[in-house]
């Protein structure tokens, strides 16, 4: 059963009438948005539109079903962008889906992820009430921070209906350095060096077995000098990408075009110091994978059943979220303490309409 609400009132009505609900935005995160048996899909694609945008404020508010692409086009007209670089924008991701899935793209390296840019939220809770949290200004600490809580909540604490975000001026030009190291361990060392360096890096990705992608952005007049300094720091022959080729590269990264057909894609929360441990365990299977955000995020693509990856993540104490793939197992590895999450769940969705949180 699919409902396509046209208004927030409609969303409230659906929530009150149905006992099991799965909110869906653009449906791009296939593993997260497909309904289980008996669930009513609340398709949010009818609740779309930017409600408020003042470029001088660096903020905007929009309905949750608004496609990311639409927002990006609007911001671009004023030289602004979403620095957390929402993934799957070209595929049709919505603002609500991006927040609920808690996903950010490679450019989140510089200024922070979706959690750091969401300022305000309105959502329909498990009892059909509209709840607002946060606000529309860049600095605000009044009341509990519901906007943050909704990041990564997978639609299990409420149906997002409206969101406010902070935005930034978009760098006027970009350059990316592609550099190869002899092996993974040398590449990880180079990654760590860059991670603690004073370079203002826009994105820092590592592609096994030894390729580093370093993106910088800023004013056109200073970019060449900065690029030169970066190349000297890296200290060996490197390829520099600029212009359309450079933009296309990162677009393909955030759209996951590198993921082989038929594979599920799992987001793994990690830190640079633990990359090697995960790599050692993955070595035998050699799945397509990419370490993003300077080694704070691993994207692992696996064909077939995810049982092996689940076991591997558990063994190294890491948590994973299956984003792309058939519905079913979405939580992999070692997730944190469920006690606190359960209590939050009890407060916002006591009847369990939105499915289990932990």
């Amino acid at each position, binding site marked *: 059963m699919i409902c396509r609400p046209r208004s927030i009132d409609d969303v409230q009505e659906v929530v009150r009438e149905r006992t099991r609900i799965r909110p869906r935005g653009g449906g791009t995160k296939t593993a997260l948005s497909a309904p289980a048996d008996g669930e009513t899909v609340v398709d949010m694609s009818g609740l779309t539109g930017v409600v408020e945008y*003042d470029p*001088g*404020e660096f*903020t905007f508010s929009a309905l949750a079903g608004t496609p990311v692409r639409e927002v990006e086009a609007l911001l671009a007209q004023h*030289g602004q962008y979403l620095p957390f670089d929402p993934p799957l924008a070209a595929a049709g991701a919505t603002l609500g889906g991006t927040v609920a899935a808690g996903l950010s793209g490679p450019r*989140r390296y510089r200024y*922070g992820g979706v*959690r*750091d840019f969401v300022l305000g939220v309105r959502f329909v809770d498990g009892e059909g*009430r509209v*709840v*607002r*949290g946060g*606000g529309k*200004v*860049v*600095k*605000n*600490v*009044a*009341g*509990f*921070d*519901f906007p*943050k*809580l*909704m*990041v*990564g*909540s*997978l639609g*299990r604490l409420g149906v997002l209906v409206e969101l406010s975000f902070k935005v930034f*001026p978009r760098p*006027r030009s970009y350059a990316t350095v592609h550099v190869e190291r002899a092996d993974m361990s040398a590449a990880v060392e180079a990654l*760590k060096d860059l*991670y603690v360096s*004073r370079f*203002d890096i826009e994105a820092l990705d590592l592609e096994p077995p030894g390729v580093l992608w370093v993106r910088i952005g*800023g*004013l056109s007049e*200073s970019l060449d000098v*900065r690029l030169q300094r970066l190349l000297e720091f890296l200290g060996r022959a490197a390829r520099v990408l600029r212009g359309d080729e450079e933009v296309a590269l990162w677009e393909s990264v955030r759209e996951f075009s590198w993921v082989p057909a038929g594979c599920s894609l799992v987001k793994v*929360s*990690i*830190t640079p*110091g633990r990359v090697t441990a995960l790599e050692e365990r993955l070595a035998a299977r050699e799945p397509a994978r990419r370490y993003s*955000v300077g080694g704070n*995020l691993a994207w692992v693509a696996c064909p077939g059943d995810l049982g092996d990856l689940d076991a591997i993540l558990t063994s190294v104490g890491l948590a994973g*979220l299956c984003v792309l793939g058939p519905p079913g197992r979405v*939580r992999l590895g070692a*997730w*944190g*303490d469920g*006690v*606190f*999450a359960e*209590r*939050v769940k009890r*407060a916002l969705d006591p009847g369990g309409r939105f499915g289990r*949180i932990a």
Partner: protein
Amino acid sequence: MSTFDIRSSLREIYPPARILTRPAELAPYESDALTAFRARPVAVVLPQTQDEVVATVRWCNRTGVPFVARGSGTSLSGGSLPVPDGIVIALNRLNRILRLDPTERLAVVEPGVINSDVSRAAAPHGLYYVPDPSSQPVCTIGGNVAFNSGGAHCLKYGMTTNHVLAIKAVLADGEVVQLGGGSVEGVGPDLVGIFVGSEGLLGIALEITLRLLPKPEGYRTVLAAYRTLEAAGEAVAQVVAAGLLPGAMEIMDRLAIEAAEAAVGAGYPLDAAAILIVELEGELPEIEAELAHLMRVIKVSGAYEVRLARDEAQRQVIWKGRKSAFSAVGRLSPDYIVQDGVVPRGRLAEALAEIERLSRESGIRVANVFHAGDGNLHPLILYDGRQPGALARAEELAGEILRLCVRLGGSITGEHGVGMEKRDYLPQMFGQADLEAMRRLRRAVDPLELSNRGKMFPSRE
């Protein structure tokens, strides 16, 4: 439980020397930096270990005694005001930096660690902890986390919450939970995000994992003087419109300049109605290029005097005046209330004009120091507490300013928190359903409402 029973029963956990009960011992804990509110707790306990904190919270849960966790007591919203029939858990002795991992760019600290000590410990590695409230040399990380207090750099770097990666906390029933995992990218609902800024209503943080950043390679700091406060406010909007993202943008008005000059002699232009401080930070070639853009903007913004700090010493002089402003205002008036409402940046000039009008009408002097980059006002409302009714009149004006902020689309608090001070103003920002959801969350985590009872939510409840 009687006062006597509470005190003797706490000996299960603490040696007598670490249970304060005598009036003279309790006096320093009767208020925080919002001295207009006072309450005497039954006892203050001084834990030295996380286990003692957990044992105390479990004891409170068992006996039904409410507790207030407290660091250095710098809260300006009465956030660490004691509950009269409760105890204070003073966390200053939990002040160890447990781990500092430069390659992971993180520090694991106890709640009693002083904010600036984190940056000091990280400095040899070229790293620092970004959030810098004005009370940075004294305030504790636990308090920063409870109130999500930010400082001058929130536009570019976000508030405290953006720099907290994980929290080990004890909930009000004594359950110990681990939220977040130390990576900047998490999975599942952002539980760290809801805990930060919850004003102590969800429990006590025992261990906090902080994100460190590499120190910017350099800074370019500009001071511009204006004939009107509005012109300074509009200059901020113009800087932003030029596509620049400064690390900090601060404004001080005439009264604040006067006070700061009298206190530290930073050499500010005394004839200015307002000064604007803009600081660019980042890679040297980039900030040089940005500076050219900034200077062009400042030139056409109507500034009658512009200074560029040529070296670190000159930069420090510019900041010295700004950083001393709060305490310096103490020279102008025996007492003052610091508000911290927020307005959309584009409405700064309007807000300032309105505050000026309210000040004139009420006959109460207001000095303005604020984080202009993120619209966070800090009107300092001057009064003399020895005059009958002066505090009430000052509070009334403070309330007017808060309502103004909400009316302009802003917030009643940007970094101080709601605490005791602004709880009756929370309904200005949120509706019944919003507040009810927050209350339900509080009760789901703390059914007896033991943790920091009486704060944040409107008093009628």
